[in-house]
């Protein structure tokens, strides 16, 4: 809508208050979305009701943690954990803006406190400890909050004898928390070691995109690893690799399908079948047991974290 149009409209508005308004760009974008893959224009409400999967080409749009949880869990079953846990700026990190400011911005944009939502919920009747990451918040990066929430989620799983499911989507570690951020890889992996010792199941769901420190820790430690179609998953980013090896990579490099072929994941599951698959997986592993499942090692349940 250019200025002339706008003035024309304003005049019309003044003449006749009931005139129909043309859409603003934001409104337009809110109502319609274009598929990244097939370029089809899709009515947003339709897209949403189709689980944010393009009805034409089945492209799986990125979705946020909230939408993910809504899609997967039984209505009203989700009880959030640690909703108030927030980042601080332990290193007083400052690049072109301060980390504190960036955190505020990120929250304003995403409506979230950090890049993961965790809680207890049921999926088609099966109770689980569930985490969902949100790429829209700070690129889904893992800092102290993501690490701490994952660790607590896993502990909740151990305490309540529940399988743990984490739906990942992340650009990697959060640089602005420096070494703390790197150490969250160790923290989350150590937590999962305790879950493993307790004989409990962990299902990792990889979604577009999952990279870096998240893949090199909890995302690749699933007893079962599921990916969504087309999701790009890897440790190093495609561009970095191309710069390093000075070669073009195959088009489907690091896609879910490529990973399946290379033995890195158990299955690729389309979004409409995800909840059912998870429920069936959980059901399958709740078998008539030969021996009692007992947690052999347990970390102090009270999380001891420093505050600055």
């Amino acid at each position, binding site marked *: 809508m250019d200025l002339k149009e706008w003035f024309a409209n304003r005049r019309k508005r003044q003449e006749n208050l009931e005139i129909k308004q043309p859409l603003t760009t934001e409104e337009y974008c809110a109502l319609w979305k274009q598929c990244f893959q097939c370029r089809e224009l899709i009515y947003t409400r339709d897209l949403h009701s189709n689980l944010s999967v393009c009805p034409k080409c089945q492209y799986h749009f990125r979705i946020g943690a909230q939408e993910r949880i809504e899609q997967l869990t039984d209505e009203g079953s989700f009880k959030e954990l640690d909703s108030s846990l927030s980042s601080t700026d332990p290193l007083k*990190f400052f*690049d072109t803006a301060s980390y504190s400011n960036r955190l505020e911005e990120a929250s304003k944009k995403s409506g979230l406190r950090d890049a993961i939502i965790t809680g207890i919920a049921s999926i088609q009747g099966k109770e689980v400890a569930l985490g969902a990451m949100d790429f829209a918040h700070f690129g889904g990066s893992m800092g102290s909050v993501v690490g701490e929430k994952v660790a607590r989620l896993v502990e909740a799983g151990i305490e309540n004898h529940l399988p743990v499911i984490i739906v990942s989507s992340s650009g990697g570690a959060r640089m602005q928390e420096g070494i*703390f951020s790197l150490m969250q890889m160790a923290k989350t992996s*150590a937590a999962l070691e305790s879950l493993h010792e307790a004989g409990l199941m962990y299902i990792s769901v990889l979604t577009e995109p999952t990279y870096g*420190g998240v893949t*090199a820790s909890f995302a690749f430690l699933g007893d079962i690893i599921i990916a969504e179609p087309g999701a790009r998953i*890897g*440790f190093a980013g495609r561009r970095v*690799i191309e710069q390093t090896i000075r070669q073009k990579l195959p088009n489907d490099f690091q896609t879910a399908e490529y990973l399946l072929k290379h033995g890195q994941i158990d299955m690729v599951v389309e979004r409409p079948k995800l909840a059912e698959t998870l429920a069936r997986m959980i059901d399958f592993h709740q078998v008539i047991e030969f021996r009692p499942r007992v947690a052999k090692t347990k970390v102090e349940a009270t999380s001891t*974290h420093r505050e600055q």
Partner: protein
Amino acid sequence: MVNNETKTVPLDFEQPLTVLAQQIELLEAQLQSQPELEPDVTHLRDQYEILRRSIYSNLRPIDHLALARHAQRPYARDYFDRFDNTWMELHGDRKMADDPAIISGLVTIGPYKVVAIGTDKGRNLRQKQICNFGMPQPEGYRKAMRMFEHAEKFHLPIITLIDTPGAYPGMAAEEHNQAEAIARNLMVLASLTVPVIAVVTGEGGSGGALAIGLANRILMLEHAVYSVISPEGCASILWRSADKVATACEAMKMTAAEIHKISVVDEVVDEPLGGAHQNYDLMAHTLQKSLIKQLDKLTKMSPKQIKQDRLEKYRKIGVTVE
């Protein structure tokens, strides 16, 4: 191998020292014919020592980085050789490769027999290429994992010496699932009931370093650095500028002293004045003393306590508010 007679390569921030050293050399050459210059030479020599100490007690983060990356920095092999000149190297992941960027073996350190693992950057160009400049492949991490399991079976403590730019962003590395290789190492390291001590001797580069770095105690040499991303990577992402490396170094708090201050690192090990490369023997000796001291404490714990100690250590790392 560098010894005290070999000339070490000077770094940028050592420029004033180099200039002064040249002046001293000039005067020394004249001493024979002009013995009256003796007091001047002595004075300059004192000045040199004062300047040296002053420079080394006021290093910027990027100066530490330069020292950590010094071409003559001692690598894992240099330490293992000095800890135990008959140490036995063990090779391979048993599956497909022996990654030269990760070395491992059976090393005696004072009264302790340990499984030692370290990264190797390679000394000359050929070696550097073979070692991929210290960037391990997934097979290297898996070789390390085999060593972790060996140590666990035989109740041997594990020592890891870390000096790596990080994991290698290569196509095969991705196809061989380096993410999983690193993650699996973290989980296995968390499960061990033997003591694990990790030492960042040079560069502690991100996930590639952590893959052999989840330990009961983390030590850093005085000029070593440890970061979640290379300062170059950080600068190019956050400042979109390669010139901002020094700034990135400062921002990330990657020096031994800074990381020790926030309690992620348990001990900073002194280096010889001028850096570890000035005196391999002294450096190895100092590090050996630190390792023995740590092992003395850790080996007093029960296997269960050792594991618990490690889990609790990592459980606590991170800063959040509620």
